[in-house]
């Protein structure tokens, strides 16, 4: 408590001066009613987290200058229309986390300058038609986490200035036509975590300014065609619903769309033209739409950066894929039936390509040509028999290459000097042991056979098999044996303090650059090939 604030500060609250005004904090003080002697110069009053279960009529009638009133986290069941009389300048009213069961309909709250009203986390099952008659300037309304079973259409008619509203976490099952007709200024509408099963095809009429629509976690059976009227829509979410198809020209009315989230839907069919002419869309992800046979036509969707189309039925890719998608950074097409690859030459921004689990047989010289930004390439679980010697020549940024489970007998190393991860397991015809000099930055390498790992560990300095514990325990005492074994420099040196320092430096640098090569050679997979041929 300070200065004049001290004299005007109701006990046991804390007060701060704000020029001639005062800010009063009575939060978490165990109060069961609104303090009586509040100063008319109060601009901010926090009564949150107390035990207030009732607000007397005209409890704040002298607080004409009050701008923000917080009564969240109390036990209020009902607040009469007269409770907030006199609060002409109130801009923010927080009533969340109470037990409000109904709002006044006889004499609605008269708060002409209110901008933000928080009613979330209460027990409201209905909003009377007259409830918002006295808050016409309202811009932000929180009604989420209540028990509403319908959109409060009539009540919303009184809010022409509303810009952001959440009705999430309620029990709404249907959105009727013309539900939001008067909300021409609404920019954000959250309806996630309801039970919405159906919606009128004209239910979003009037929402001319809507930019964000969140329909996630509902029970929608059909694609929400009602979005067609939302010409300003930028962000749309309807993931975790029950939608099985995305129709042709699905987003023809939404040219401003930047993000569409619709994962976790049993989508089987996608219209070929569904995602055309979305010049601002940067992410498109489709997983498990098994009825997709052809690659979608993405004409006019030129800003796409991330395209994920997995577990569908694609067998080929359009030759002009990169002409349509020049800004592509991530291309994830795993779990399809793709056989031949076009040249990704024009996709110069590509950083990641996922083509695992397809039916690719060969890689041409032009396939990945000029992809100087490519960092990760996953071609595992295909049928690749041959890779053109120059196929990786220009992949200067490639650090991860996965060729697991293919039919390779050799791989070109030209262009792969930046690799830190290389996986070749399962290429049973590949016998070559690659020299570490090819991969100066290698950290993790998986080879078809253990002997191919010998070039990465000092296999010669291993003690005779008898010394190599058959069951390698992981206790620390063994650490030294294996550390010494991996770095022979220690093996037969007499103790010399200067040399010790020098060796520590080398040892430390080696430890940092140690390569993890598997399968690890061992007593049953020794490095010395038996009778000159490992296979015998």
């Amino acid at each position, binding site marked *: 408590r300070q200065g004049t604030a001290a004299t005007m500060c109701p006990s046991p609250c804390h007060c701060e001066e704000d020029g001639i005004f005062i800010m009063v904090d009575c939060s978490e003080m165990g109060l069961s009613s609104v303090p009586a002697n509040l100063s008319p110069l109060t601009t901010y009053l926090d009564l949150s987290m107390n035990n207030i279960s009732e607000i007397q009529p005209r409890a704040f009638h002298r607080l004409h200058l009050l701008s923000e009133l917080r009564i969240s986290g109390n036990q209020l069941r009902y607040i009469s229309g007269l409770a907030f009389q006199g609060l002409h300048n109130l801009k923010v009213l927080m009533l969340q986390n109470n037990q409000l069961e109904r709002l006044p309909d006889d004499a609605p709250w008269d708060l002409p300058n209110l901008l933000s009203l928080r009613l979330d986390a209460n027990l409201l099952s209905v909003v009377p038609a007259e409830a918002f008659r006295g808050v016409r300037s309202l811009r932000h309304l929180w009604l989420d986490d209540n028990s509403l079973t319908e959109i409060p259409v009539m009540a919303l008619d009184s809010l022409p200035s509303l810009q952001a509203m959440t009705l999430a976490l309620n029990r709404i099952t249907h959105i009727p036509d013309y539900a939001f007709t008067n909300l021409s200024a609404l920019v954000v509408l959250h309806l996630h975590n309801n039970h919405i099963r159906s919606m009128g095809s004209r239910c979003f009429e009037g929402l001319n300014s809507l930019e964000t629509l969140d329909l996630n976690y509902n029970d929608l059976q059909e694609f929400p065609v009602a979005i067609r009227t939302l010409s300003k829509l930028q962000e749309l979410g309807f993931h975790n619903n029950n939608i099985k198809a995305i129709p042709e020209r699905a987003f023809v009315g939404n040219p401003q769309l930047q993000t569409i989230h619709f994962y976790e839907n049993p989508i089987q069919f996608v219209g070929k033209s569904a995602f055309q002419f979305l010049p601002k869309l940067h992410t498109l992800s489709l997983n498990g739409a098994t009825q997709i046979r052809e690659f979608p036509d993405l004409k006019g969707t030129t800003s796409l950066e991330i395209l994920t189309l997995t577990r569908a039925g694609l067998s080929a890719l359009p030759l002009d894929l990169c002409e349509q998608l020049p800004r592509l950074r991530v291309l994830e097409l795993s779990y399809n039936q793709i056989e031949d690859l076009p040249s990704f030459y024009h996709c110069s921004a590509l950083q990641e390509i996922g083509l695992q689990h397809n039916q690719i047989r060969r890689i041409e010289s032009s396939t990945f040509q000029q992809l100087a930004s490519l960092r990760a390439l996953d071609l595992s679980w295909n049928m690749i028999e041959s890779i053109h010697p120059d196929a990786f020549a220009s992949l200067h940024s490639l650090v991860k290459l996965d060729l697991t489970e293919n039919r390779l007998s050799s791989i070109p190393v030209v262009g792969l000097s930046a690799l*830190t*991860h290389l996986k070749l397991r399962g290429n049973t015809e590949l016998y070559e042991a690659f020299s570490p000099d090819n991969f100066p930055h290698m*950290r*993790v390498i998986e080879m078809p056979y253990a002997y191919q790992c010998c070039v990465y560990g000092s296999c010669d300095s291993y003690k005779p098999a008898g010394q190599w514990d058959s069951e*390698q325990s*992981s206790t*620390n*005492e063994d*650490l*030294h044996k*294996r*550390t010494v074994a*991996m770095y022979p420099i*220690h093996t037969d040196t007499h*103790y010399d303090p200067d040399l*010790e320092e020098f060796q*520590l430096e080398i*040892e*430390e640098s080696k*430890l*940092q650059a140690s390569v*993890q090569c*598997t*399968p*690890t050679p061992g007593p049953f997979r020794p490095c010395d090939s038996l009778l000159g041929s490992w296979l015998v």
Partner: protein
Amino acid sequence: SERPVLRAIIKVTLLKHEPTGKPLTLEGVFVGGSAGKAEGKLMQYHPLSLCNTSEDERQESDFITIVKLEHRVHHCLPLPDKARMALDKGAQAVIFDIRNDASAAAELQEVDSLPRPVVLVEDNNAKELMDLVNKNEEAKVVIEIKMEPKWPHYD
């Protein structure tokens, strides 16, 4: 496949005692295949801050993240991903206090591709570090590979 368990030396110097202060020397175990040296200011992160929904809280200078794991906290991500997220947020290294999360060590042992050092601490080593954090005692930490004595058991 068996991987050498490398131990870490953790030298902790209170910033208010720099540069002459004698460092507190603690120990831990490297995991994630990224043993090595790291240095930075100690910075605690709540276990829930390393989740997909966490926002980007950038620190100015070099820092080393310490997280006290809690088995009661909802595991929003596997620990290797939490470690990667901490490193992606700019940490020079990550220290996990695993006293209250018995499964943590096993979960992190098999990881191989973490870009920078990740260290597990327990017992008194963990307690000393977290007591510093609890008292908000700003400290600089240097992590190094513990060089085991040359011939501890041989003739």
